[in-house]
C-alpha cells in the first residue's frame, strides 16, 4: 500500500489532519459549539461551487468561504444578534443553499464534486501536501502558543474577560482555526464529514480522560488512529476515505464508552 506514491501522500496529509482536527475540535466542544464545524463545512461547500463557477481551484475558494463563514458565525454570536445555535443555523443553511445553486449554475454535479464532499485518497498531490503541511503546522503552533489563554476562555468566558484576556480575539482565533482545519482537511475527509473528525475523537477522549491535558492528548491520538485506520480500509475496500475515517472515529467512541461503562 505504501509503495504507492498517492498513498504515501494521503497518509502524510492524513496524519497532519488527524492531529489538527481534534486539537482544534477540543475547543469547539468545550465551548459547546460542536456543530460549528458543520456550519463552516457547508459554507465551504458553497466555496467549492464558487470555485467551479469561477474556474479557480476549489481548495482556495473553499478555504476563503470557510474563513468568511467562521467570521460570520463569530460576529453574530459576539454581537448577540442570535444565540450560538441560531447563528449556526443561519450560516449552515445559507451555505448549503448557496452551494447547490452555484453548483447547478456551474453544471458541476459530477464525480469530482463527490471527492470534495466525501474525500478522496487519489487526489492529494505533492503541492497539496506542502500547503497542508504549512497551514496545518502553522495552526498547531498557534494553538500551542495560545493554549493556556484559550483554555481559560473556554472554561470561563466572563472570568477571562474580567481578568483582561482579549476574549473576542481568542474566540476569533478558534473560529479561524476551525475554518483553516476544514480547508486543509477537505481533500482527505471531505467537507461534509470533516466536522465529525473534529468532534468525535474529543467526545471519545472525554469519556476516559482524567484532566483537560489528557483529554487533548487522547483526542489527538484518537484522531490520528481514526485517520490511519480509515485510510487503510478506504484503500483496500475502495471506499471514500471520509466515510471510513469517521466510522473509525465512531468505533473509537464506542470503545471508550465501553471502557467507561466497565469502570463503573
Amino acid at each position, binding site marked *: 500500500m505504501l509503495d504507492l506514491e498517492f498513498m504515501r501522500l494521503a497518509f502524510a496529509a492524513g496524519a497532519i489532519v488527524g492531529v489538527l482536527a481534534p486539537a482544534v475540535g477540543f475547543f469547539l466542544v468545550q465551548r459547546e459549539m460542536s456543530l460549528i464545524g458543520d456550519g463552516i463545512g457547508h459554507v465551504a461547500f458553497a466555496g467549492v461551487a464558487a470555485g467551479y463557477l469561477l474556474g479557480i481551484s476549489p481548495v482556495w475558494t473553499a478555504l476563503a468561504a470557510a474563513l468568511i463563514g467562521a467570521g460570520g458565525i463569530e460576529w453574530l454570536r459576539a454581537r448577540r444578534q442570535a444565540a450560538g445555535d441560531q447563528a449556526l443555523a443561519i450560516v449552515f443553511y445559507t451555505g448549503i443553499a448557496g452551494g447547490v445553486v452555484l453548483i447547478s449554475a456551474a453544471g458541476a454535479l459530477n464525480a469530482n464534486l463527490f471527492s470534495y464532499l466525501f474525500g478522496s485518497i487519489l487526489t492529494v498531490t505533492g503541492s497539496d501536501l506542502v500547503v497542508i503541511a504549512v497551514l496545518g503546522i502553522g495552526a498547531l503552533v498557534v494553538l500551542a502558543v495560545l493554549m493556556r489563554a484559550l483554555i*481559560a476562555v473556554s472554561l470561563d468566558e466572563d472570568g477571562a474577560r474580567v*481578568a483582561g484576556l482579549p476574549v473576542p480575539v481568542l474566540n476569533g482565533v478558534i473560529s479561524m482555526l476551525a475554518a483553516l482545519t476544514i480547508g486543509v482537511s477537505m481533500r482527505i475527509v471531505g467537507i461534509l464529514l470533516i466536522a465529525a473528525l473534529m468532534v468525535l475523537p474529543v467526545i471519545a477522549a472525554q469519556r476516559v480522560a482524567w*484532566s483537560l491535558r489528557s483529554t487533548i492528548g487522547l483526542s489527538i491520538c484518537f484522531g490520528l488512529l481514526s485517520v490511519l485506520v480509515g485510510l487503510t480500509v478506504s484503500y483496500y475496500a475502495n471506499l471514500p476515505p471520509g466515510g471510513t475515517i469517521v466510522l473509525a472515529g465512531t468505533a473509537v467512541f464506542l470503545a471508550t464508552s465501553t471502557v467507561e461503562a466497565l469502570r463503573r
Partner: protein
Amino acid sequence: MPLALELDGVDFAYGQGPAVLTDVDLRVAEGEFVAIAGPNGGGKTTLLRLALGLERPTRGAVLLFGEAARTFGARTKIGYLAQRTKIGVHAPATVREVVEAGRAALRPVGRLRRDDHAAVEEALERVGMHELAGRRLSTLSGGQQQRAFIAKALAAHPSLLVLDEPTTGVDVAAQDALGALLHRLHEELGVTILYVSHEFGAVERFVQRLVLVRERIVFDGPPSQLPGLWHDPSHTHA
C-alpha cells in the same frame, strides 16, 4: 485612600427591559471590605457586572481605580467569582487546572513559571483543596467545586476581590474558613473585597460596611446601624 470603585448616578436595564438599577451612587475605597445584600432580583449581580465593566450603564459613570471600567487596563488586579459558576464542570478539568486558569491572564503564553505554580498551590491550600487538587471537578460535591472556584479567583493575587454568593452550597465549617481567609487577605494584604451574599454569618464580624440593593441602594453603612425596617429574609442578621 484612593477609590477602588466608583459608581456615579448609574441607571441600568437589560436591553429594552425594565429598570434593574436606578440612580446608584457607590464609592468603595481601596482596602475596604464591603458586603452587598438584597432580595432576589434586587440587582446585586448586575451591580457587580457593571462594576467589572462587563455591562455598560444606561446612564452615569463606572470607574475602576479611577479609570472607566469598560476600558480598565490593569485587569489582572481583579479576582472575580461569578454567581452559580459551573467552570469546567462539563469539561474534564481537574481542580488544579481550573485554578491554573486563574493565572492565564498573567501568563497567557509560554510555560507556567515557578511563581505561577507557587501561587496556584498557595490558593489551593488557602481554600483547603490541596488534597483534592488532582481530582476532576465533576467528581466533587457542589461545595468543593465552589471552593475550587474561589481558589481560581485568588490565584492571581488580586488587589480587588469580587465574590458573588461564594458560600452557596458551602458547609458552615468551610464558610467560617472562607470568612477567616477573607479577613486575613483584607487585614494582611489590604485586599479590597466586594462580597455578595444572603448569609453573612461567616463575615459578619469582619465587614465594616453593608450595602443593601433593591433597584436602588436602600442602605449603606455599618451593619450595626441597619434599621429594623430593612431586615428581610434575604439578610440573616445574627
